[in-house]
């Protein structure tokens, strides 16, 4: 019984949140990895593009809410999501046309691209704060829980409750669907195959008649969709704040690098590695341990390895370890 309680406490506080967070990171890291594979630079504007997409979605959500449109138990944001994706696609295509294409034509060094993406980041940062303000926004509505802790306790008679938030359920389901769709696209469609070819060997791809500009446009559109979904899911699950989204850049980059830059499967694995490490290291284990240890050995402190303020340090340390020992990442990514 105690073991079951420990298991439930573990699932409630670590497993479920980590799976949800990991899915969000994985979607974000897929975007980073695709940009890296096709356009060959690390996009520092990623977090702020994510904030932009989420912002558009929130604006549409508010509009729908004001008109009384909703999805019943599901959050209205899901209905607004396609519009958010569309808005982000337009934004990234405009920035590509106005900013990045020039440097692509010049065959500029990757570090110049990175710097240019910093400029884009600055502008998006200002734009998002200008439109929606720097504060915290919650936009989740509908049913809050699929299963509340009380229901679970009632059902099983255990002392520990297991709550499953609607947003967590939606996150996992959406992430699975998106990943399946993405892999189907990359592996089965002509465009997807040309994207992979371009990523593997640019010269060979050009030689076989693949239009690079078309590949780039598709990449940006897919990335826009991925990160808007990631951003909205994160915002639904926690809350939307422009600065938090900027900070998400670090765990997202860490996920992509840990998995192996340019490798989509690696990005997903990396997302979960980072999410689980962050959760397990910053969680106070006392709640789980009291069930597992004999009374005399029960821990007196919280048994928290690091305070939650250091969650970025966790992704950073993992990043450093991977850079030191396996610069190409867990799955073989690109290395230069």
């Amino acid at each position: 019984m105690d073991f079951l309680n420990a298991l439930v406490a573990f699932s409630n506080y670590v497993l479920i949140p980590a799976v949800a967070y990991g899915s969000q990171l994985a979607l974000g890291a897929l975007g980073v990895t695709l940009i890296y594979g096709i356009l060959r630079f690390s996009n520092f504007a990623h977090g702020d593009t994510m904030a932009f997409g989420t912002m558009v979605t929130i604006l549409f959500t508010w509009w729908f809410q004001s008109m009384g449109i909703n999805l019943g138990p599901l959050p209205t944001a899901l209905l607004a999501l396609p519009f958010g994706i569309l808005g982000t696609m337009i934004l990234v295509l405009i920035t590509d046309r106005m900013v990045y294409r020039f440097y692509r034509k010049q065959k500029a060094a990757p570090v110049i691209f990175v710097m240019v993406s910093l400029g884009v980041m600055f502008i998006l940062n200002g734009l998002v704060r200008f439109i929606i303000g720097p504060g915290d926004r919650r936009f989740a509505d509908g049913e809050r829980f699929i299963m509340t802790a009380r229901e679970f306790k009632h059902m099983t008679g255990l002392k520990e409750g297991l709550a499953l938030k609607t947003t967590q359920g939606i996150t996992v389901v959406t992430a699975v669907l998106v990943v399946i769709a993405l892999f189907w696209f990359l592996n089965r469609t002509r465009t997807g195959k040309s994207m992979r070819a371009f990523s593997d060997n640019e010269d060979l791809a050009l030689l076989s008649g693949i239009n690079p500009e078309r590949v780039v446009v598709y990449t940006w559109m897919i990335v826009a969709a991925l990160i808007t979904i990631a951003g909205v899911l994160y915002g639904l699950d926690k809350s939307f704040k422009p600065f938090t989204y900027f900070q998400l850049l670090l765990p997202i980059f860490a996920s992509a690098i840990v998995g192996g830059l340019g490798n989509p499967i690696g990005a997903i694995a990396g997302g979960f590695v980072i999410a689980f490490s962050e959760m397990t290291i910053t969680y106070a284990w006392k709640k789980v341990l009291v069930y597992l240890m004999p009374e005399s050995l029960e821990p007196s402190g919280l048994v928290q390895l690091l305070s939650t303020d250091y969650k970025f340090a966790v992704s950073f340390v993992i990043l450093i370890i991977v850079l030191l020992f396996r610069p190409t990442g867990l799955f073989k990514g690109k290395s230069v």
Partner: protein
Amino acid sequence: MSDTVKNTALFALVAVLIIWTGFSQSWNLALQILNMGLISAIMALGVNLQWGFAGLFNVGIMGFVAVGGLAAVLFSMPPVPEAFWAGGPRALFSLLVGAGVIVAAVLVMKKMAASRKRNLLVVAILVGGFFLFRALFDPAVDAIEAVNSASAGYMGGLGLPVILAWPLGGVLAAGVAWVIGKTALGLRSDYLAIATLGIAEIIIAVMKNEDWLARGVKNVSGIPRPFITPREINLQNDPGFVETVTNLGLDPVTASSLYVKLSYTLLFSVVLIILFILAQRALKSPWGRMMRAIRDNEVAAMAMGKNVTKRHLQIFVLGSAICGLAGAMMTTLDGQLTPGSYQPLRFTFLIWVMVIVGGSGSNLGAILGGFLIYFFWIRVGQWGPDLMYFITSGLPDDSALKAHLIDSAAHMRLLTMGLILLLVLRFSPRGLIPEK
């Protein structure tokens, strides 16, 4: 137009802008912009060393600046003996133990042959060491933080003169840069960017949370001033000073604040000039030529027998040290350390805009960029709302849109800075004062 004339004209423009601020707004504001401009110019010099000389992309300037600020507290604040004796030796000892664990792990990693046994041993050392460290460290921290937590709650500093703390801030920042450079240099250029971005966030997180070190978000205020800078209140109580300024037709309160600011200007100018001369000499020396050769073609430089990674590490440490020095100076100027106020957009990306706009690779350009961009950063923050009042003057006063637009106008400067960066990179990538 020769280069000298053009450069003089550009610096004269900056001078005119600042003096114009003095006449149209207040001399206090003008001197404040000048002082922060000097500090920004020093930071830009440091970043220019890394980017302009060596092509290294450091996105963690904020972290090095903050470390410098921390040094100003740790070296110059008076000690809190009670707190130190409550837990100081224990805390320091456990930090040594922590460092020892890491060294032990690295040694095992290096000395033993690669095998599963070695990897397990390293993991065991690290995990065991972590718990040992926490077991020693946590009670010491609690003891320190318990002492008089409203006004102290930390060990205080060493009580050295604050000017001495500036170079020490540089040394501390150099230490951090060495660790980062050791791991991330030699990999692809993006990795250094990501690693520095991460370390900057972590440094800020540590400074916010480790109250025993420098009071965290409770801030440390009242940092001692350099010997030539008196307190305003002492000046106002000094009859000689009051008489002199009254004869000049100034109000003693304003005059004392101007006097203090001017003394900082003097000190900062001396530091900037020394650093500028050193940087110019370095640029023109064989060492500087080697650096630029490495930047322009790493493979060729390697073929000539240059150790690229080592040289990169060297210049990365040097540039970060300058940022740390500037950080210590800034904290001294503010008189307080407020970890909550370090924003990456302000302390990392703004410095980048300065370097790029000024002209990467040119020391004079970095200095010009530092003054110019800081001026616009401050003034755009004021012009934005004014402009917005003007634009929205047609809207009714109670309109929600108008209120929102005016509230958000402060964020215009992020947008402006991003735009400037992109425009300069695109149309004048060599900057205002290009590298020769």
